[in-house]
């Protein structure tokens, strides 16, 4: 009975994975297509070769990753703190703040993007700066933080307060009590929030498009602006490489963890 259910679970997970990875397989396949077309023209590795000669794409990739990592980190800290504060607010204020905080998610990206552009352009004329790395980062933090709050909030609501109080009674100062009791409890939410922030930041092109200024470009913009002509397979090659690297890291971590698990049980 139990085995049957386990098998059912495995099949279910496998089906979801097929759904998630089918397009990725197609994307990878076309990185080997000998031609800039959706028709299969034969196998080639030339797009990988082109990739390393294309400094524009490499710069864009670098910019994209830096922004995504920094935006994810800052918004995770900002959002986790905010969630704790908002959680302690009284009902009407709490709903109001939560709803306002959701606005960057609700707003169509172009509206957020253009309003940021107008705001930064105005500030730029006041303080004499031009849009670029910093404005893109600020914009990304602004739309990522709500996702962190949305992920942390349910964990706070689920948490048992008495542990925190117990820690205080046992002589912890509030800071220690927080890191020893609250943090572990909400950690899954914090990590989900960070993952989502990273993901959204990595993929955004509309908001970045309007806040990047004349010197800064990210990979999603590079790809979006190719749309008037056609997307170069070098982009598929790049995605494939990133995919393989991530999978490799994942496998290493997993092996490591499994070993640790075994040691613990042994």
């Amino acid at each position, binding site marked *: 009975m139990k085995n049957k259910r386990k098998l059912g*679970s495995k099949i279910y*997970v496998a089906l979801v994975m097929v*759904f*998630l990875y089918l*397009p990725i397989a*197609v*994307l990878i396949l076309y990185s080997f297509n000998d031609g800039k077309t959706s028709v299969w023209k034969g196998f080639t590795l030339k797009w990988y070769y082109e990739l390393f000669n294309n400094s524009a794409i490499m710069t864009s990739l670098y910019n994209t990753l830096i922004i995504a990592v920094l935006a994810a980190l800052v918004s995770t800290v*900002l959002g986790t*703190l*905010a*969630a*704790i*504060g*908002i959680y*302690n*607010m009284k009902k009407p204020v709490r*709903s109001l*703040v939560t*709803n*306002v905080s*959701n*606005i*960057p998610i609700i*707003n*169509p990206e172009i*509206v957020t993007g253009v*309003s*940021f552009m*107008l*705001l930064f352009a105005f500030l730029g004329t006041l303080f004499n700066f031009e849009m670029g790395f910093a404005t893109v980062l*600020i914009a990304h933090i602004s739309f990522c*933080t709500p996702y962190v709050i*949305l*992920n942390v*909030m*349910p964990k706070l609501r*689920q948490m048992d307060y008495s542990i*925190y109080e117990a820690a205080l009674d046992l002589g912890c100062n509030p800071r220690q009590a*927080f890191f020893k009791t*609250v943090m572990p409890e909400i950690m*899954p*939410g914090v990590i*989900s929030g960070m993952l*989502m922030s990273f*993901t959204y930041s990595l993929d955004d092109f509309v908001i970045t498009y309007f806040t990047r200024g004349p010197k800064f470009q990210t990979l*999603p913009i590079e*790809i979006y602006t190719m749309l008037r002509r056609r*997307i170069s397979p070098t*982009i*598929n090659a790049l*995605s494939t490489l*990133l*995919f393989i690297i*991530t*999978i490799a890291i*994942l496998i290493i971590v*997993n092996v490591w*963890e*499994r070993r640790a*698990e075994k040691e613990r049980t042994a």
Partner: protein
Amino acid sequence: MKSKAPSIPYLIWMLVFTIIPLAMVVYYAFTDRSGNFTLQSFADSLFYTDVFVRSLWIALLSTAICLLIAYPLSYIMSRAKASTRNVITMLIMLPMWMNFILRIYAWVLLLQNDGLVDLAVHLLGLDVPLLGNAGAVVLGMVYNFLPFMVLPIHSVMLKIDNRLVEAAQDLGAGKAKVFSKVIFPLSIPGIISGITMVFVPTASTFLVAQYLGGTGDKMIGDVIENIFQRDKNVGSAISLALMIIILVFIIIMNKFGDEEAAVA
């Protein structure tokens, strides 16, 4: 821990980077090109009522399907070993790290005539166009937002105390009872976060309908994208209307969720 102070940095941040842009949208929505007060922009946006209804319907459908797929998955994950769980989490998120446009393109290639999925469907004896209709748009949305449903539900389910489940079983509750009285109510906060994170962006996303839909599947995100470029006034009016509809939806849902959670 009882203090509201930690939220202060974000409140200030919000004031500058959320409220000010919001105020700009409101200002544009109620003025014309020369800055005089008018409601004309809202009148103009009435033309797109059908598109509005269609978008909300597609968003609702996509959210429901996401929930249906994500819930069992989250449950399975929460019962798995930590290492397995981490791997599944990462595997669910990883496709989203590939570029959005490339992912949609891949779906176009799969669904088009003689694409892989199209061929598979043919083998099953069905002959329906898979691309260029509302179904394809929903599929694209589900694909793009599924992880954002799985993560919050899973992170809440992780913490459901197994002793509660055992206690319920000891008290003679069947599987269905355990689920409806213990597991489901306790997972509501995660479900609400998940629905918010899927429904909200789906309603305003653009490009998905352009690539996967046909001539009759334009969504409000595409319309706003088109209009806002050249007419901030009407563009703002439509966005504001969209924002209000979605906020009302979220508020109703939260109220419902609070009550449910309170009952449990």
